[in-house]
């Protein structure tokens, strides 16, 4: 579904992403983990078409992101870590906007939009301005808007931030449903339980590079910690990656 090759992104002299290469299969939930500043959000924003890479290529479902970004955007939906929305629109108008941008039939926007608002427990708030919503309600509305055009790839950055346990359970269920329906999910999270529970494969990112990639069993093997939790593996691998440059810099 996604093929990333030699991806680089620099902000001035700071290199946020340093030569990432990985691929993601169709229909899988791919976890993207890493400590703060590892380059997760930057990578996700590049794949979502929000920022351009400094070097490297990204292909989504066969479409080269640099050459045909519109085709990529048409089949993907992005859910950012912070739910910035047009505060002066109502929940339904937000869906109407997103549906319009994707050229969906109005009948579909209406019926599917209503269905999604009910699913995300926003049915009673359909005609209320977004400015009156709590953080969790906005996050749920972003999910509803993202699912409206039936994306083949869902890019989700920190989905659990600001959600109550009920909302978090709903989101986990929705992510699994998406995969069962044939879509793929590219997911970044700091919540190890969520990653362990919903992800088929996980990449652990550290300082702009992939420190490890594989299924839970493969990660355990790589970390040489059989039976350990994802949290233990994560801490072990990211700690190793953190000390690497010091070793590299040491005199021979």
């Amino acid at each position, binding site marked *: 579904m996604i093929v990333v090759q030699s991806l680089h992104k620099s902000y001035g002299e700071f290199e946020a992403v340093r030569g990432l290469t990985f691929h993601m299969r169709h229909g899988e939930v791919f976890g993207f983990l890493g400590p703060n500043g590892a380059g997760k959000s930057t990578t996700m924003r590049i794949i979502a078409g929000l920022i351009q890479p400094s070097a490297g290529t990204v292909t989504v479902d066969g479409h080269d992101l640099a050459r045909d970004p519109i085709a990529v955007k048409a089949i993907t939906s992005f859910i950012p870590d912070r739910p910035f929305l047009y505060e002066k629109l109502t929940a339904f108008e937000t869906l*109407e906007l997103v549906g319009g*941008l994707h050229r969906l039939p109005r009948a579909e926007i209406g019926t599917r939009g209503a269905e999604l608002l009910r699913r995300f427990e926003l049915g009673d708030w359909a005609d209320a301005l977004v400015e009156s919503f709590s953080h969790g309600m906005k996050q749920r509305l972003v999910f509803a808007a993202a699912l409206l055009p039936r994306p083949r790839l869902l890019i989700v950055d920190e989905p659990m931030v600001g959600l109550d346990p009920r909302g978090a359970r709903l989101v986990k269920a929705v992510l699994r449903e998406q995969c069962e329906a044939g879509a793929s999910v590219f997911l970044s999270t700091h919540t190890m339980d969520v990653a362990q529970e919903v992800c088929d494969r996980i990449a652990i990112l550290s300082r702009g590079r992939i420190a490890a990639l594989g299924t839970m069993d493969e990660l355990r093997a790589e970390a040489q910690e059989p039976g350990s939790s994802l949290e233990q593996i994560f801490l072990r691998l990211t700690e190793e990656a953190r000390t690497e440059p010091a070793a590299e810099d040491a005199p021979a």
Partner: protein
Amino acid sequence: MSARVLLRAKWRTLANLRRSAQMGPTRLAVLVVMGLLVWLGIGATSLWFLGKVVAIEPIGVVMLRKLVELVLLFVLSILTVSNLIAAFSTFFLADDLPALVARPVTANALFTARWAENGLYASWMTVGFTAPFFLAVGMAMDAPLAYHLRWLLALPVLATIPTSLAVIVALLLGRVLSARRTRQLLVLLATMVFTVLFVLFRQLEPERFVDPDQRAPLLEALGQVQSSPTPWLPSAWVADSLWGALAPVGEVVGHPLLRLVTGALALFFVAGWVFRGTYRTAFSRAQEGQGRQAGDREHTRPRRTLEAITAALVARGGHGHPARALAAKDRRVFLRDTTQWTQMLLLVALVAIYVVNFSYVRSAGDSGIISANGLHFINLSLGGFVAVAICVRFAFPAISLEGRAFWIVLRAPLPMLEVLRGKWRSLAVPLCGLIGLLVTITSVWLGSGWLLTAIALGTVVPLTVGLTGLALGLGARFPRFHIDNAAKIATGLGGVLYMFGGLALLLAVVILAVAPTLGVVQWVEHHYRPSLGWVALQGVAGVIAVGLPLLVGRIAVRRGARHLEQHGINA
């Protein structure tokens, strides 16, 4: 926590601009150099113009006095409008207010810090760029050092008066009406400002000095030097004080500078007193207006059920269309976002000044000082200037006002150029309507005739389209997504570049339009046919006058779109 601590944080924010990604040292240096050039330009132009005025015997000095008074009144009006707009943001809507109000900050410290911030933010540009005019007055009159010391003291003190007044008005209205009713409030204020401006400018009657039929006898005119028609206004106190230092004719009654300083101090203390009495309640109301209102049914229309909205949309049928979806979003946001309505206040003030200026222009035409063709180009230039000014307030911030929600549009499967073109269309249509209407009305009022009116309209409409594109494109090239105040968005490097570019474009179009306009007038009205080569040259100039703004707008929009595609929300 003292006011000094609060202000220091603001000062550090300003000082760190050179290190910020938004500004950076290069942009800051360009901005400073451009500012200096404008400052020197105003000074040089003022000196040239005032030299001409003073040389008109025997009434030149009297005209200078009136001119100083007019400029001061203009400064006072601009300061009042900008302070009023800023006061709502500074005292009720600023992002840092909840954190400050939640801290153990004394009322006096908070008031002093916000008052100073409001005054400095709303006044520095007006005061700074008026200063070269007063310097030029002194140079034209060969004034003593006392004159220069007086204007250097009087201008900042004058600026504090509208600040205090604006704070008092904002606090009282915020206390009585609640921030939710800001829209009605601003319409009320706009009407008030319009009325006051109009009455005051009419009282000065500037056209009397150029109309020989209405010009007052010399003795009467000299007598006016001693008495201002608005002696109760601070601008008149400053004018009296400055005139006292220049003192070529007439005597100054009382101590105008003392009046100014004591008046400013008194208003500052009254504003502080009003702040202590009203702020807690007014701020609380403003928070209720901004925050979450679960179960609140105060929104403009009754809440409809999901079934009803769905049925209405399904009944419309057809497909959603990106351009129409974005236009509908823009329309809804504009109508519901009260902070954007503050821009209307400036629009009203601009139109007021425009209309008032025309009585002056018309008098100049009636007295034969300016020919009908000359009036046409003045009309065109003033109309174009209003278009430049309106575009910087409405078209330039259009992309930045999308704010952090712009990721939704960036993520949409449509080219950014299409997004910008859609915005260009929806902005250009009403702006062309407004500017076209203004220019047509004033052209008819000036008695320019159908031909010149049609030419004026044919020139100003493509110019407005081009200016809208230029403002929108530069707004996309220099976006400020983190600022939600439309008035602040245009104060950066992009806004300054737009003003320079817009005025240069206006100048180019007016110059290019001279030959073809005169050619058409001579051909239609006098049946004069010049050589074929000359006609061809006029035709080319005409085509460029119409085509240049459209081309500039198109290039600006394309470049803006490309920049947004490359840099996204981090642009």
